[in-house]
């Protein structure tokens, strides 16, 4: 099985050579980003009208308890240096220009993460002030739900975004039988953590 998958995309893909489902396709696509970024990924955050709790959680990623740097992830103040954009807030229309400029200034390949319930369309409906969903403004690669998402959830989102972890949420039905698949609190091992 390992020999057949002699792809140059990444070591994680060699264990799963056949791309079958939509989830696998997404993993393969993000795995290409992983091959480019390796273990040095620079992250730019932008706030499109969030209540600042998501920012508080993002900032906690730098605390010694989580220590983002040990995973090779760094925050950068300039979008031109950024590989990945974390967007919080419900995409207020007043931020359209700033968001567009930030996205355009990032070099290819770029990955976008929507952080929290707001950019996912959970809290604010679309009206004359907000877009409601970030997808309406820029393409989004990874969605991280939560209000706010905890730093551990953000960490998993970042690693899913660069193909270092597989997403887990497709394995859960949120019916009572979910415990059979994975006990709560445990993290299933990804292909190449």
């Amino acid at each position, binding site marked *: 099985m390992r020999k057949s998958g002699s792809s140059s995309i990444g070591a994680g893909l060699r264990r799963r050579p056949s791309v079958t489902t939509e989830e696998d396709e997404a993993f393969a696509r993000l795995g290409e980003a992983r091959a480019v970024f390796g273990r040095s990924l620079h992250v730019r955050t932008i706030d499109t009208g969030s209540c600042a709790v998501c920012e508080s959680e993002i900032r906690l990623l730098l605390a010694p308890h989580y220590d983002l740097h*040990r995973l090779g992830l760094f925050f950068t103040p300039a979008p031109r240096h950024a590989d990945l954009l974390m967007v919080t807030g419900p995409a207020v229309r007043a931020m359209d220009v700033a968001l567009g400029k930030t996205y355009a200034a990032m070099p290819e390949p770029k990955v976008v993460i929507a952080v929290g319930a707001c950019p996912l369309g959970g809290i604010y409906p679309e009206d004359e002030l907000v877009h409601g969903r970030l997808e309406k403004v820029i393409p989004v690669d990874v969605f991280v739900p939560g209000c706010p998402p905890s730093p551990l959830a953000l960490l998993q989102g970042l690693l899913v975004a660069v193909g270092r972890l597989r997403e887990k949420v497709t394995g859960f039905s949120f019916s009572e039988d979910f415990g059979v698949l994975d006990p709560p609190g445990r993290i299933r091992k990804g292909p190449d953590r």
Partner: protein
Amino acid sequence: MALWFWRGLRKGVVTTRYPAVTDPWARGLPTPPVFDPKRLTVAIADQAVAACPSQALAREGTLLLLDLGACSACGRCLAVAGPAARPSGLFELAATSRGHLVKSIQIGGPAEGGI
């Protein structure tokens, strides 16, 4: 000092892997609900839909739709649904497609009346 730091110094490894097991305190985080289809009835589902402040719940016939992207884990549906729902304990819910976050739960309880 953290063990990974000494390991890095000893082996010259700059970056480390993702932790295999979450910290014990993470079990206390607020998390989206998980529903028991056998105890869930249409009446309870409707109460939970009405209690949800962020429209994360919706009922379509005998299906309860749970949108994890919209859920803020406030716990109001847990208060309404009683034993038919409990916190899932799952918070690492990053998804590569918005559709992966919408879960449908079969309502398998009695058609009329509560528990």
